[in-house]
């Protein structure tokens, strides 16, 4: 990582700590915002958060590794999460997965070369009445068909 990137990240984290406070109970809020801005929380960012909250870096890493929506490794600009839990599964989510995998040329868990998309499975996203469902970043897409799912992907920048 370049020096200026580090500095700007440190400043960003400092602002977040100012915004949410430097108690440990601010940790998730700070991590969520870094995740949103960068789609992952780098090694440097995790250490910087730890330093500013006065906890150990491994504690931050431990927390990041626990929650499915926080990542330590770089992801695509858009994270596509397909629900794989029972009600969506019963509505033929496999066909959606295959369509997306074919379209993007990657498998679940992978990121496209241009870093535009990462596709992942999610556990029940609470859209069981409208499955199969997927969430792209924060937006939800329901009652998918293979064709519609791909259309939605294409509509994302």
């Amino acid at each position, binding site marked *: 990582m370049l020096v200026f990137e580090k500095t700007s990240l440190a400043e960003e984290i400092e602002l977040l700590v100012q915004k949410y406070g430097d108690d440990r109970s601010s940790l998730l809020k700070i991590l969520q915002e870094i995740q949103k801005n960068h789609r992952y929380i780098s090694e440097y960012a995790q*250490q910087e958060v730890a330093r500013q909250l*006065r906890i150990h*870096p*491994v504690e931050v890493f431990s927390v990041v590794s626990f929650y499915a929506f926080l990542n330590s490794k770089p992801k695509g600009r858009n994270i596509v999460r397909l629900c794989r839990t029972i009600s969506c599964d019963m509505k033929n989510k496999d066909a959606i997965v295959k369509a997306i995998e074919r379209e993007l040329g990657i498998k679940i868990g992978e990121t496209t070369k241009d870093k535009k998309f990462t596709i992942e499975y999610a556990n029940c996203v609470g859209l069981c009445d409208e499955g199969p469902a997927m969430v792209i970043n924060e937006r939800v897409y329901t009652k998918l068909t293979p064709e519609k799912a791909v259309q939605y992907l294409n509509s994302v920048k």
Partner: protein
Amino acid sequence: MRKTNGGRAPVSLKPHVIAKPEHPEYIGGSISIQINEKKLSVPMGTTILEACKDNNTHIPTLCHHDDLCIAGVCRVCVVEVEGMKNLQASCAFPITSPIKITTASPKVRKARKHVIDLLLSEHYGECYSCFRNNNCELQSLAKEYGVDHYNFGHIEKPRFEVDNSSFSVIRDMDKCVLCRRCVRTCIDLQEVGVLEAIDRGDETHIGTFFEKQLSDVICINCGQCINRCPTGALRANDPRDDIWAAIDDPNKHVVIQTAPSPRAAIGEEFGLEPGHSMTEELNTALRRIGFDKIFDTNFTADLTIMEEGTELLLRLYKALVEGDSSQKVPQFTSCSPGWVKYLEHFYPDYIDNLSTAKSPQQMFGAVIKTFYAQEEKVNPKDIVTVAVMPCSAKKFECNRPEMTDSGFKDVDYGLTTREMAQMIKESGIYLPELPKSKFDDPFGEASGAGLIFGATGGVMEAALRTVVELVTGKKVESIFENANIMPVRGFEGVKYVELPIEEVGPVPDILKAYFPNWDWLKGVTVKVAVAHGTANAKKVMEDIEAGGKFSECHFIEFMGCPGGCIGGGGQPIPTNTYIREKRAEAIYQEEAGLPIRKSHENPHVSYIYEKFLTEGPCSHLSHKLLHTSYTKRGEYIA
């Protein structure tokens, strides 16, 4: 400035705080309960496990450890509480109402057996290829519950790579049972914070920051995690093979030094109760094993006192009299390599406060490969120096690149108490029954001051005995009965002592080159402190940063491990307060009977200053061989 943040453990991992009346006899202070058939009364807030222990009812445990806060994660200690549908973890259940406990019902027995079966199904490897064979808590549980086959299968391939990057601690996560004792030790007990639970679900494992190797993160090598690991998942980096090879090589002259703490604890490895010092039996064993010379680390502990004590006086003189602001006060002790690395990482701005004197282990190595080699006419390149230490960090210390002042690696191998015991066993020797024998000359005699280095407060006591006598010209016995400086002894986390110097004597010959007189110390109240375990060290450092009372101290003893060296990461397993107290008692008892109890009265110390370090303590040559420098490591993990 860094702020304090109190304990780091999540509330769930902390002992329960139950509002209790001050005395069990006050109303609400005690509760009547029933354990199996027995009715009894226990103080409010006692855990079921404690209540059962106090009443001779056995409950098996795994994640529970006396030194650590409650976790309640292994579920081995479950019991039945009448009226509750589910079983309760006895270690984590505080008694606050009259309850009826059943500790061995069919339901309980079955649940425990299942838990043990599950742990075994994930536990890779076999007992016979594990260093914890016969001293493994998982193995004991399996035995206790009569496990004779793997009920839920057994993992056939390793899931993790062994991390043997560290000079001190090796992690083999395939043997981990996720009791999290190491996490609680590292984060809570020591406040170092290297290990945590990573990932979740069945992927959960204990890991470091970004799964880096231990050598790449801020591990201080204290090895306290090893001491508390119930299985063989954590172990010290074992150099036995290399040492055997050196012993077997006729061209090598293998010299071993033994530190006081291993001698006070090694009996435990042979089934003795804690608290038996085996110093002279160990000498015999080492001779039988084939070491060429056996020396007492206490000799260089005495030398350390001379160097460090002189350094302290010089530092104070330069700072207080000459106004030299580059001289940092308080002076910190530097003989605990765990503490030194802790400071280098967490308080790098304070490395100038560390005494530059090497630890006794490293001084010994440097002296052996120079003075001793010269006197004995042995080529230093053929000398192999081994140090028996209570410590895993000593392995790292002897591998520090700067520790080569003799022109060679000053100390070749650090050997833990456990590994030493193993070598003795491999030689077919039962240590407790051996005849006693003395150390070898010329470094075979040491003072009691060197001996007590092993317990927290020992270095301070040794230093005070010498410094007080050198400065006041009076016997220390005239101030402290039998020269036992009781205020610095004991297991209190941080001790603080003030010692007014009312009169001063003449400057002794050995220090005349440095000081015209002691008048500048007359009327000064010497303030000293003692801290053991890095969590306590942290408290002192935070106070110093905030300009509190410890910043006014002249000299502070820091030990990386709880209890000092007797509780070191290389000591026999298990460890707890009782065991550490017994080991300390053994050391103080042995010391009380010694003829010489002050470092400056050790004739061998005088001899080395006459023959070799002729310009006295802190001179040019002693600086070259016996002093060192430190590295500002900082907290950033690259």
